[in-house]
């Protein structure tokens, strides 16, 4: 498999929510690529649009939200019987969100792991029934075979006694076990892209370590790409190879993980990195906090949405013009006028 093959290309994505109080620009210009087998992190604070990005890709943006502009190109690779691969290109934004084609992709080729395993699993179906539903929907197998595969999948994600847990209900399992069940469900159809939306946020650190280890192993074994949506820079540093940083619906910086942590360019990324207390570093007296608060989504400041909080604010520039994406070096972009040529 060629690692440089594109799997997903997002260009100028805009997803708006049309509410009575006004229009919320949840995503207002997101550009990024995901290659095959790659782990990409999407990081940002609450309300920055990172979860809606995942929902837009799967076309499950809740009402009254809508993808209004942009492209999400998904590259499907199919192995022929003679061993060659054929590539098919699908524009996900052009599909009917309730149509057959997106349904065959959703859960089959792109699947999702949600943050809260208690609210995103059905309380009235057993783990097995929920995993089998996905298998039967996407693969042509009978119920016995689906059950066999469900048990196999549960064993793969480290569920103890998979033959009996397959018949347990989510409330009978602990948080970590439920998240394992959800991962088993997401992986049951061998997707080429897994969207993990805060997969460990609701878990304790020792359980989080188990789940992250599991996801790392599965990614290597199954060769799938993972899009990690999280606010935790620690998870980003440990799990991903490329990162995009979002602020108020915009991708403000994109780089490989080492560059992002050691040579960040956008003032927001820098401020974010300086505001976290770190375990391995010497205890400094004060944390650098970002002044002010996230702006009101109904009433975004003109120009760069970060300018009211920015340490490098340039009056007359940042608060006037819309900021384009500047390429700093190949693979490293920042949406900031500091890097205008």
């Amino acid at each position, binding site marked *: 498999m060629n690692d440089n093959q594109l799997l997903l290309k997002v260009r100028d994505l805009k997803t708006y929510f049309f509410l009575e109080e006004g229009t919320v620009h949840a995503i207002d210009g997101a550009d990024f690529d995901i290659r095959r087998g790659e782990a990409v992190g999407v990081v940002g*604070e609450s309300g920055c649009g990172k979860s809606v990005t995942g929902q837009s890709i799967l076309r499950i943006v809740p009402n009254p939200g809508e993808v209004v502009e942009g492209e999400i190109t998904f590259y499907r690779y199919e192995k022929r019987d003679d061993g060659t691969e054929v590539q098919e290109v699908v524009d996900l934004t052009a599909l009917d969100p309730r149509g057959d084609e997106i349904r065959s992709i959703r859960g089959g080729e792109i699947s999702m792991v949600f943050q809260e395993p208690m609210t995103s699993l059905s309380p009235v179906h057993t783990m097995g029934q929920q995993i089998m539903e996905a298998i039967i929907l996407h693969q042509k197998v009978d119920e016995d075979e689906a059950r066999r595969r469900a048990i196999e999948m549960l064993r793969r994600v480290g569920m103890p006694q998979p033959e009996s847990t397959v018949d347990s209900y989510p409330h009978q399992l602990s948080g970590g076990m439920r998240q394992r069940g959800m991962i088993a469900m997401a992986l049951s159809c061998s997707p080429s892209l897994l969207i993990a939306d805060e997969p460990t946020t609701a878990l304790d650190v020792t359980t989080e370590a188990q789940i992250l280890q599991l996801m790392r192993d599965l990614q290597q074994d199954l060769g799938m790409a993972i899009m990690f949506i999280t606010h935790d820079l620690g998870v980003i540093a*440990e799990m991903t190879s490329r990162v995009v940083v979002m602020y108020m619906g915009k991708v403000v910086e994109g780089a490989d993980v080492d560059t992002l942590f050691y040579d960040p360019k956008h003032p927001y990324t820098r401020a974010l990195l300086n505001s976290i207390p770190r*375990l391995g570093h010497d*205890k400094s007296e004060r944390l650098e906090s970002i002044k002010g608060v996230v702006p009101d989504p109904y009433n975004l400041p003109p120009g760069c949405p970060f300018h009211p909080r920015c340490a490098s604010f340039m009056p007359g520039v940042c608060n006037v013009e819309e900021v384009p994406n500047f390429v700093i070096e190949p693979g490293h972009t920042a949406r900031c006028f500091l890097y205008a040529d």
Partner: protein
Amino acid sequence: MAENTNPMLLRVNNLVKHFPIRRGFLKTNVGAVRAVDGVNFHIRERETLGLVGESGCGKTTTGRCIMRAIEPTSGEVLYTRSNGETINLPELERDDLKDLRKEIQMIFQDPYSSLNPRMTLLQIVGEPLTVTKVAHGREVEERVAQLLRIVGLRPEYMRRYPHAFSGGQRQRIGIARALALNPRFIVADEPVSALDVSIQAQVLNLLQDLQAEYGLTYLFVAHDLSVVRHISDRVAVMYVGKLVEMAATEELYYTPLHPYTEALMSSVPKPDPRATKRRIILEGEVANPANPPSGCYFHPRCRYCIDICKEEEPELLEYRPEHYAKCHRAEELSLRGVGG
């Protein structure tokens, strides 16, 4: 950190809180959840003690028992008042508590559910003043304006309702309420865990400034080890209702004595892509506090477990000056801290 020789503010001796499990029509007692099971620690004046552990370990219950927000089953909580008098909080009559709560206040985790949505900031922050009758009318307003200014909010906002504020601002409102009566001791229960990182830093800095300015003492309950390290002078680690280790912050983080502390610290994802990824992944799950294992509660998950750990419960002993650990093998193991 310099050795803290300030006078003792709080000493907790053998604090126990068991929640009964009742079953059946007659609600007969069939057992107990040992949420807090014999906890000992002390806090000196102007000090911050961090209390860490995973969910269900009893850290919040410990904080609430000290406040008498819930009644402890047994044990002593000896609190030294500003006039030097030491009182045992669990023995105090309800009526005397109100007077004491001028000195001990609490900051809650969730700034959304801990503020009454039908009350204005003036009512929320002013309530402690009116309930304890320390201020009336105009005075309340003046004091609330002053408090809002202290926590970094504009006094003009005092007639607004909490919904008009962001999470970080709401947490500031909660802090202003806690400060209203000039307390000496604040139990902060996960005060920043519901906040975004950039806002977290603002609130942590505020708490540190307030401590320096007003000489406050904090019991800082949290699950985030990096936050606890940043703010605490000393740290206590809880596991299934018991303290397993307690020491000065840097000592605990660099040279832990308990295998659980070691595993906990190695589990935290480090925000550094160049960090070595030698993690200790704990097997299994946290023990059930209604039916804990024999011997040391941690032994089924411990990679250093030997026979004695399965049978005999270790005691919390002082292995180094001011460094306590509850492990049979504390002296022989050399465990990895955050540096390694």
